[in-house]
Structures are given as C-alpha cells and as structure tokens.
C-alpha cells in the first residue's frame, strides 16, 4: 500500500484539507514539491490529500493542515471531524487564520446581501464566513496570502522532529 513506512522508518502521517478559498496555499505546497518531493515521499505518509490521490483516509493523522475559511455548516462538521482525527492541526494562509479574503461577503451592504441571500439559504451557508479558530483549537499557523513557503517548511520540519521522523540531511 502507498504511504506505508519504508523499512522500519516512521513517517509523519499528514492530511491536507481545503475549505472555502482559492487553493493558492495548496498551490504553494505543490510548488514546494518541485524541490522536496523526494524527501517527502520518504518522510511523509499522505493519509488524506485530494490533489494527489483518490483513496483518502483521515483516521490516525499526526498532522492535519487546513487552508481556507469556514463558510457552511458542512464545513464546520468536517472541520470538527478533522480535529478529532489529528494529533496536531496547523492552519495555513490568511483565509484560515482570519477569514479573509474568502470572507468578502461579511462586509456586504444590505443590497448585496439581499442578492446573495437565496444562495446562502439554499446551500446551507453560515451567516458569516469564519476563521478556523472559531470552531476548533489549532496548534500552529503559517501566515500569508498565499502562505509563506519558508515558514511552512520550518513548521513542517518542527513536526517531523516532534514525531521523531528523522529528516535525512543531504538528500
């Protein structure tokens, strides 16, 4: 099976989750693969990553990485399930951290609100678009729009160390 430890080496079990946003932070993550794909294949067990695979499973994650703001009731339920299944949760990008720019509608005037009301109702949107911390406890965050690639690497490195996954220097 994909993602099982190679030999005896332990891997960091991660999931990547996207909520309401532009997926620009995921794009930065995919761009980081240009240089880090080889080492990540050895260090990381991608349990849940919709952009890379279709057989996803969120049980038993060490680290869940979350991008995007929370805009609907379904978002809230999914976010809480992710938290229950992950030892650590890291949020990335300003949408997840403070809601913007995904939360544009929070500042709409009455006229604009009236226009979008039928869609909000029909698809179960929340009255306001909310940051992730409103619903769950998070362990760390990577700011930026898109997220800072350097800070992301530093944070990820921290989790690899915390979970005892030795990075292989020089690889």
């Amino acid at each position, binding site marked *: 099976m*994909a*993602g099982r430890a190679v030999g005896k080496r332990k891997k960091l079990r991660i999931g990547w989750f*996207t*909520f*309401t*946003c*532009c*997926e*620009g*932070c*995921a*794009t*930065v993550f*995919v*761009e980081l*693969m*240009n*240089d880090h*794909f*080889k080492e990540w*294949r050895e260090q990381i067990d*991608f349990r849940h990553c*919709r*952009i*890379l*695979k*279709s*057989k*996803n499973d969120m049980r038993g994650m060490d680290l869940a990485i979350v991008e995007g703001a929370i*805009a*609907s009731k379904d*978002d809230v339920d999914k976010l809480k399930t992710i938290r229950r299944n992950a030892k650590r949760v890291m949020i990335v990008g300003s949408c997840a951290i403070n809601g913007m*720019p*995904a939360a*544009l*509608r929070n500042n*709409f005037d009455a006229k*604009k609100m009236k*226009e*979008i009301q039928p*869609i909000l109702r029909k*698809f179960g*949107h929340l009255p306001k678009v909310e940051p992730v911390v409103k619903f769950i406890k998070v362990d760390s965050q990577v700011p930026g*729009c*898109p997220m800072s690639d350097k800070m992301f690497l530093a944070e990820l490195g921290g989790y690899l160390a915390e979970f005892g996954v030795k990075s292989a220097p020089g690889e």
Partner: protein
Amino acid sequence: MHNTSDIHIEDLSKIEGHTNLDIGIKGDKVTSVKLRISENKRFYTQAIRGLTIDEIPSLVSRICGTCSISHMTCAIEALETALGVEPSEQTLVLRNLSMNGTILRDHAMHLYLFCLPDIIGTDSVLDFGPKDMRIVERGLAVKKAANNLATLVAGRAVHAIYPKLGGFTQAPEEAKANRLVKEMKYVRDNVFDALDLFLGSDYELECSARDVAMVNDDFNFVKGSIMTSDGQAIQDDEFQDHLHRVVLPYSQATGFEFQGKEYKVGALPRINLNEKSLHKDTRKDAAKHLKPFPSKNIYHNNLAQAIEMLHCIDNSIELLESSDFKDESPLMPKGKSGAGVGVIEAPRGTLYYELIVKDSRIHDGTLVIPTAQNQVNMERDIRKLVEEDLSRGTDRHTMEHDIEKLIRAYDPCMSCASHFLKVRWKQEQ
C-alpha cells in the same frame, strides 16, 4: 446485470476544487447527469462592485490560486480598455511571459501530478516505482522553471505583485533572465516524456461540440481574436451576445452555451484552431505529436496541453533572448469612467471580464470562467461515456474510474467555477 443502479461520486480527486456528480440511470439509458460544483461561492461578482480600480487586480487574483495571474491580467486588460490605456510594448511582452509561466506551471501540475497516474495505472504519483518517478521528477523540474519564470516577471507565481493597471512595477533583471533562459533550455527535453506518453494513450471519446478559442499569429495567450471551429469571429465587446448563461439549479456555479449550443474551450480548441501559429521549434520537434490535430477526441486535450508546454518554453526563450528590459512606470489611465472587456486564454480556456467603471470605482462587472463554459459539454460527454460503458456491460468500479479520467481530461477548475467531485447514481424504475 450489474449496471442497474445510479451513480454518485463524491468529491472527485486530483482536480482543482470540489465537485460531486449525480447520474440517473434507467436500463441502458442515462436519464440525467448533474455535475454539482460544491465549492462554496465567494461572491466575487458582488464583492468587486464599489471597489477602486487599484484594488481589483490583486483581489480577483484570489479567485483562483493556480491561475491567479490569468484573472489579474484579464481584469487589467478590461480596465485598460475601459479607461483608455495603451500598454507599452514591453508590458505586452511581460504579460506574454507571465502567462507563459502560468500556463506552463498549471499544465505541468495537471499532467504530471493529476493525469499521469491514470496513464501509468496507479491511484497516485505517490505509488509510482523508480522508473515512473523519474518522469515525475523531470516534470517537476519543468514546473520549477515555470515557477521561476512567473516569479522573475510577475514577482510571485501565486498572487503576483508586479502587474498593475498600466504596466509592471518592476522589469526583470538581465542576469536573472539569462539564467532562466539556461534553465528553460535545460528542462525543454523533459517535456517529451509527457508528449510521448499522451500521444501513446489510447483513450478515446469523440466530442463534437464546437471549439472556441483565441487565434493570433504567435500563439500568445493575451491578444488575438476569438474564433469558432465553424469559422465565426467574435468581437471582444460582443461576447455577451453569443455566450448565454445557463442556470444549473443543483450547482454552486452556472454553465454557458454558445448561441444556444454547448461548446468547449481550453488547450484542445486552441491547438485545433491555431496550430499553425505555434513556435517554429515546437512545430518542428513535436511534428509527430501534432499529427492528430485538429482532433475531436477529448482526451487529446492532455496532448494539447503537453504541446502548449513546449510552446511556452520555446516562446519564452525567444522573448527573453530578444528583449532588453528597461525600467518603466505603469501608465496612468486617461479617464475615470468607461466600460471595457478583457479577453485572454487562461490555462483552461478563454476568460472574459467586462468591467464598468464610474469615477474610478467598479460599478458593475461580469466574469465568464473557462470551466463554466465547459460544464454543459462535460455533462454531455459524461452521458455519452456512461451509455457506451453500459452497453458494453462495464462494471461499476471501472465506470466510475472512466468518468473521473474523462473529467480530468477536461482539467476543470472548481475554484474558478465557484470551485470539484461526488458521483451519485440515481436509479429510476
């Protein structure tokens, strides 16, 4: 018979954004296909109203991370048309280069990370053995060069910082431009892995919908006229007369028809209509890969993307080698009010922006997104594929995988279309 119940696919993987698919089946016939884009709307059409013209490019960039430079460039073009700004020659070259970078990076992501597993026969690039991993690594080197190109010209590959209304705030440094030319020349050969693999693929589904794409004489993605495969030309400011919005009540996005009929946009229509304008080195070295075109086989969209990758490299090398960039300040708009249309070719097809400006603020705006234009046609092709599979007695699991492959061939972007996939098979008695 095992094909007696409906299909429901949830949250399709290896595409941009979230979508679900519901398919109703009665006997051997498909009764309904509903591609329900489940991405939560972020209401950009409303959000842009009332904002100043300076705020628009960086805001619309946030519609979609992977093609952010396309949204930015198209909005800038619409504003410039509205306010009477004629961009300089250097600005046009920089726009071409930044779009080359965007298209090359986006196609590389789509082909090497999303589509390659379908060709190799695994679920994910993460499952590849050493030989196939080599192709991915070579592909990632191409993607990196593309990222470097966008970064050099636009400041960043995601949510660029240099492009502004009237020009770029910074010109590329010569030393960096020279280094990039070297890198482009070095990775060029890698693209032939993708070209050969997608040429060799035997997937086939004939799609008769007409092609719509920008046509010009150097296959750039920024300036040209919009043409159709039946020989019609559309003026920029008349696009609304031809493209009709189709409301899809089950989806968080809308679809489009061209004069009342479905049509397609993207790499396949571009190569079908404008093959002769590809860079001469691309035409020469990819001659055998160009043989199938013009093509009605929708899977050739991926081959067309690989050809465009080669073109983006060849064209960028030529532009970088022949340009002598100097510092320029962005031009100031002459007026404060007016209406303008921007039309460009984004990675997934023609993108239109119509912006109406009053006193340097957006009064109203219309955006027509590539994936929304392909949606009606995509649903029709899924129906055709499922009916072919049903008549062959294909098992449910294979059928679902076939559908996903077809949708990935289209390379939809749900972040843009609002955002992608669940299939729900619904059985009618």
